[in-house]
């Protein structure tokens, strides 16, 4: 837990309600962060199941197109760049949070949000283009698995965007307090997690798809 303790110890908490007792009746921010790690573990299993399904079904193209026919290298490379960069800027937001710089936190969060929205925009475009060609969810098992795996990740990112906006507003309103610092840190964890999942989607779905 060294990362999380470090995250929250480098800035003075704005208020201390009662003494810190370790077992405690006081809501310890590390408790939330630990809990969120466990949630990420279970979310990881969710993605693992979707990856397993994709691995089983990706050759079952029935009468539909194969991966090679529909994947657009420029599109998914751009998506990857946007998301990887957004993970970096999100890290910068956490870094500024540790130094107590409200303005920079907000700024980096906004940059992260813009990159996230660009990512989503490209993904929606990819889905729309394919659907327009008549390659939908019901075309083949491969496409069902593809849309569901990539779409679930996209839904996670979209949810993350809404969540990050809510936290951005709180940081602007309240500054960096014990509570908002914890929230910035947790949403950051979520964002990096989605980035890691995307690295696997990039490799397992897109790279193997265009090579195969």
């Amino acid at each position, binding site marked *: 837990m060294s990362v999380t303790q470090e995250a929250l110890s480098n800035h003075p908490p704005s208020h201390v309600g009662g003494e810190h007792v370790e077992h405690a009746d006081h809501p310890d921010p590390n408790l939330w962060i*630990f809990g969120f790690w466990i949630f990420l573990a279970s979310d990881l*299993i969710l993605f693992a199941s979707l990856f397993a*399904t994709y691995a089983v*079904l990706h050759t*079952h193209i029935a009468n539909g197109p194969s991966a090679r026919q529909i994947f657009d290298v420029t599109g998914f490379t751009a998506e990857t760049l946007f998301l990887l960069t957004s993970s970096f800027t999100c890290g910068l937001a956490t870094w500024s949070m540790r130094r107590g710089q409200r303005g920079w936190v907000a700024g980096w969060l906004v940059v992260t949000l813009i990159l996230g929205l660009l990512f989503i925009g490209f993904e929606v475009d990819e889905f729309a283009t394919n659907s327009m060609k008549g390659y939908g969810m*019901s*075309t083949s098992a491969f496409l*069902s698995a593809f849309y569901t795996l990539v779409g679930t990740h996209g839904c996670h990112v979209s949810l993350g965007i809404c969540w990050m906006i*809510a936290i951005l507003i709180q940081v602007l309103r309240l500054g960096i307090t014990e509570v908002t610092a914890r929230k910035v840190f947790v949403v950051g964890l979520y964002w990096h997690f989605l980035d890691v999942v995307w690295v696997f989607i990039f490799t397992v779905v897109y790279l193997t798809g265009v090579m195969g």
Partner: protein
Amino acid sequence: MPDDTLNVSHFLVTGDPLIYGADVSIVVVSIAIVAVLTYYRKWGWLWREWLTTVDHKKIGIMYMIAALLMLFRGGVDALLMRMQLAFPNTRFLEAEHYNQIFTTHGTIMILFMAMPFIFAMMNIAVPLMIGARDVAFPYLNAISFWMFFFGAMLFNLSFVIGGSPDAGWTSYPPLAESDFNLGPGENYYLLALQISGIGSIATGINFFVTILKMRAPGMTLMRMPLFCWAILATSILIIFVFPVLTVALALLLIDRIAGAHFFTMLGGGNPMMYINMFWIWGHPEVYIVILPAFGIFSEVVATFSGKRIFGYASMVASLMAIAVISYFTWVHHFFTMGAGPGVNSFFALSTMIIAIPTGVKIFNWLATMYNGRVRVTVPMKWALGFIPNFAVGGATGVMLSVAPADYQYHNSYFLIAHFHQTLIGGVVFGMLAGMYYWWPKMFGFVLEERYANWGFWWFNIGFYVCFIPQYLLGFMGMTRRIYTYPTGMGWSTLNLISTIGAFMMGLGFLFIAAGIVYSIFYGERDTTGDPWNGRTLEWSVPSPAPHYNFARIPVVTSRDAWWTMKKERKQGVLPPGEDEIRPIHMPKNSGRPFILSLSFFVAGFGLVFHWYILTVIGFSAVAACLLLRSFDYDTDYYIPVDEIKKTEASYGRS
């Protein structure tokens, strides 16, 4: 593609007298509840004390009430099935209706009876046992309960609106796909399980964090009561397997609603993928429900033998071994898939291996009783009844794990008898033991013994009468899920005996219920807080426990902490810890978990009937609840010292 033009005249299920009866009774009971609440002006009380509570003890009590109600409903389903099978060529239930009843029986008993019952016990006992004032995330805990509750409501609604699911509790495709199963029943199944499943994952995370991070000072992991170890193992299982069920159900739903091809026969779908994923969840799931029962037996046996548990470390090791191995046994549910001798051998062996730690636990309970001063109280009776029951259930499980032999037993009544023996003899016996054991801690009075004894004996004997014949029927070729059978198969007598046994169990349940009602009026009050001469910390606080649990957080110096404190107190040693009472930090009640889960219910109901406007409304309300929570900074408060002192004084403590 699914039929979007669903006929509204089929909205209410018609044509069956049993369902008309259910309609009438639902309306009558609903009116009665509304009338009583209004007459006694209890609406405010219901909202303030129960619907908005974040107190783990109250949430536990609500889980328990729900579990008992679902046990009743699942039990009625079981009796209807046994009535249909009592004699050959019976025309009591139609085939279609029979399919619905075995589906709802299985689903309700596992997901809406066993699961809430274990959640009830862990909510009631775990924070008290580890010396904490609540779980790690009390607000999330309330969400978990209401998600379960509205999931269960959605599932039960199918009986009167739209029709029940009928593809078995496992809901295998392709049968459960819309090609073969158009009606809304399967949608109900998928969405109800999905909604309550979200609650289950949240509970798993909550208790994992609670147990690892909220223990009283001095309570090292190896000083924890075994029940807490069992819940830790269960939480780990929940966290890592429920997402797999979530995915399996979601993909099937996408198949049904969006016409995808995950598990269909056409378009490249692969139905076995669902079956694999279902059992990757499904096998650990049986350990999710049995490990807490093991934990309860460990507490009950130690308490009523007046001894510390025999082989504590080996008990912990076997709990953890079971938790790990249970991930590697799932294929034994479908050896007949034809995965080949290599795969089947692996899963046969892992299944046999998992019996070893279970056996270790049985011997440890026996050794705990050996040379102990055993008090045969009601909870102890259920623990004693469990041991032979589970030994037989475990042994038949090992028989089933022999892959070549399983080709003979597969989906026969032998299997049915086996898993009922472990799930009833293990889980239900365990949960009832826990209910009798912790009842005084929940409500402040002990459940009366006479009714409880009648309940135990009818249920226990009825169990053998009901299920031993089913082992034989399995050998004689009777398969599960058949709604009737011809004469001359040689099955008639055994089926009749089995039905008689089922009714004996039903009578047992009635005695248990009557005992609860009787005890509410005449039960012996528990003024000490420690009616059983207990060993663990929950017995150190008054009964029922005050909402902050501990006025002072105890300091733990050994295993069986309360037992040690009592001994030391007799020798005049004062327990270590704080002298002063300090203000206690507590979470505020909130109505949002209720409204959030209700919104999920609305969204789910919309999806069942493809009324997407309702779904959009439901999910918008969910989003609103989540955002409101994010912006809510007024979530907790301090109980002042005076109030704590007053409360403690009302229990005769200082």
